[in-house]
């Protein structure tokens, strides 16, 4: 049974031009011990998926799903308290923008102390617990590569450089020893050495502590090094998902193909100085969503049928949503 299982997640948000479906029938699942990559251009709704999973959306937005299960229990029908109990001990999230996810008026020590649940502490008096929390916090900071922990812990977020805050939010998410880590662009803008360090840490935790990871990024290189499987998102629709190796070898959806082609490091056959392939146009804005398959206007294979939303089809555990997938030519 998958740890997290989402089927047909639809999110309607109210904008100045009316209600729009920012997410349209998204499917996503994360298995135990799996690293799942969630890939898509910026603006495709990755962060919205993350926020729907942990319930951090404005209350007036409409979230519906056929299924949104955590270990078989439906998250959407749970009470807020039950949901918080899950996000407290089993699921952690690293938000996209570390600075905005930190309380500007509290020291980092206070903020990381809050995330450490009581069950990680030994039995002891409350004054001992403070010291225990401190030592757990320090250990976590060392793991993500913050050496000057004292300075970091007694600072306020605006006193530290952004990359330290970024590492701190990762440390904070890991402090509760979760089953699933949802990391929204955790390595964005990091230096390459720092990035490798973080990716190594996550891989190690994945192997040793059986931490499942939902890794949201558009950094294909980082993903290919980390992920077991991948879900590709385009404009609020999940277009393809499956095992990493399978998708790399044989993408079925035109968008996935374009995405992979645009990453030079994925193409061994690329001659030097060859033009990189990319799709015409840009991702549509929410007020001008095409009907049916949202890739339609940009898709090189689009035909008349594409104004109808394609159903999800699958070959083994490789899912895709396209009327004219690529394998038809080759077959």
């Amino acid at each position, binding site marked *: 049974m998958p740890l997290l299982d989402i089927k047909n997640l639809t999110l309607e948000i109210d904008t100045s031009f009316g209600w729009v479906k920012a997410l349209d029938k998204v499917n996503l699942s994360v298995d135990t011990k799996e690293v799942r990559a969630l890939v898509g251009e910026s603006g495709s709704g990755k962060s919205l998926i993350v*926020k729907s999973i*942990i*319930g*951090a959306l*404005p209350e*007036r937005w409409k979230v519906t799903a056929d299924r949104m299960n955590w270990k078989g229990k439906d998250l959407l029908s749970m009470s*807020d*308290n039950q949901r*918080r*109990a899950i*996000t*407290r*001990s089993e699921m*952690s*999230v690293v*938000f996209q*923008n570390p600075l*905005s*996810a*930190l*309380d*500007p*008026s*509290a020291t980092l020590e206070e903020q990381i102390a*809050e*995330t450490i*649940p009581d069950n990680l502490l030994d039995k002891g008096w409350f004054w001992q617990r403070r010291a225990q929390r401190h030592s757990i916090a320090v250990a976590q900071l060392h793991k993500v590569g913050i050496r000057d922990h004292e300075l970091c812990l007694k600072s*306020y977020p*605006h006193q530290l450089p952004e990359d330290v805050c970024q590492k701190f939010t990762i440390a904070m998410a890991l402090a*509760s020893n979760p089953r699933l880590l949802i990391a929204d662009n955790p390595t964005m803008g990091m230096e390459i050495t720092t990035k490798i360090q973080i990716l190594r840490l996550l891989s190690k935790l994945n192997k040793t502590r059986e931490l499942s990871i939902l890794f949201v990024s558009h950094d294909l290189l980082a993903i290919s090094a980390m992920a077991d499987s991948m879900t590709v998102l385009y404009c609020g629709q999940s277009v393809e998902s499956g095992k990493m190796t399978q998708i790399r070898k044989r993408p079925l959806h035109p968008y996935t193909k374009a995405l992979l082609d645009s990453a030079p490091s994925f193409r061994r056959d690329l001659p030097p100085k060859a033009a990189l392939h990319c799709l015409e146009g840009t991702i549509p804005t929410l007020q001008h969503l095409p009907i049916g398959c949202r890739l339609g206007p940009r898709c090189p294979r689009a035909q008349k049928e594409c104004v109808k939303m394609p159903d999800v089809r699958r070959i083994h555990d490789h899912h895709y949503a396209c009327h004219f997938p690529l394998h038809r030519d080759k077959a």
Partner: protein
Amino acid sequence: MLVYLGRRLNLLVITLFILCAGSFALAFLFPGDPLTNLSGLANPDEQLRQQLMHKYALDQGFFASLWQYFQLIFAGDWGISMRSGSSVFEEVTRTLPASIELSVYAMVLSLFIGLPLGIFSGLSHRKALDRGILSFSLIGYSVPVFWLALLMILVFALKLGVLPMSDRVSLLYDVPLNTGFVLLDILQSDMEHREAALQNAFAHLILPTLSLTVFTCSLIVRLTRRSVINVMDSDYIKAAYAKGMSRSEVVWQHGLKNALIPIMPQLVMQFTLLMTNAMIVEVIFSWPGIGEWMIQAIYQRDFPSIRGGMLAVSVVVVSFTISMDVLLKLLYPLSKRQLHAQV
């Protein structure tokens, strides 16, 4: 921090300096003889004129006389009121506390009512409670202060006759002038009917204070509500929920502090607006404060008093603004480092 304090002190000194210079210039801009405008002595004879010329150093050029003027201002010699013949400085020190007293009570009351209402309203955003509070604050915000004051007099003083409509305390009580704050003065004095006088003074305070409170309170409700809504919508609040904290923990530990700190300066700055309104209300309630005093001075073309009153009020406002700025900075040093003053 020292740089910051230095800058603020610098700002204070320079602003006060400019205010003094401005009030000096007024003596020449008002119609009539500058000497009369400065001293308050009408139609001086030749000998007195020479004396005054010398006193104000008007015969020694502009800068010398300006400098002389500063020294006199600091020495408390602000000229003589043309109406009463008594010292302008003394009259200012008598009337200004009455205005400040009124404003302070109104401010405290507004904060006590406005902050909790604003917080409740913000926390129940888009619910019935929020809409109710918001509509009331909109009404309170739109009602003109002077009209409200008149209405209150009409209802509570004239129709119902439950509250007095003018002055600070009934003429029956002879309150010794000490601090200038009537409640304090009564408490400090050893007069006969202290309790009764206190009650009487309190009853006199109710209407003017209330008419001032309505506007300021509505403003505070709106400010607080907006700030609470913004903060509760922010990512770090969502993140705090995701850490598994309950709503009350989130509100107490992350919500309120962040909502209130940024609006502190705006909140305390309401006090200066309140002082302005207080001057209007004073006239209506014949409250012996500086507003009423200045209106009288204007009616009677008492230029030394007008000059003195304007100087006094602006000095109070400027010193209050700058000292509050410093105080808030000392309390909450973590708000973004602003070295320069902000409007």
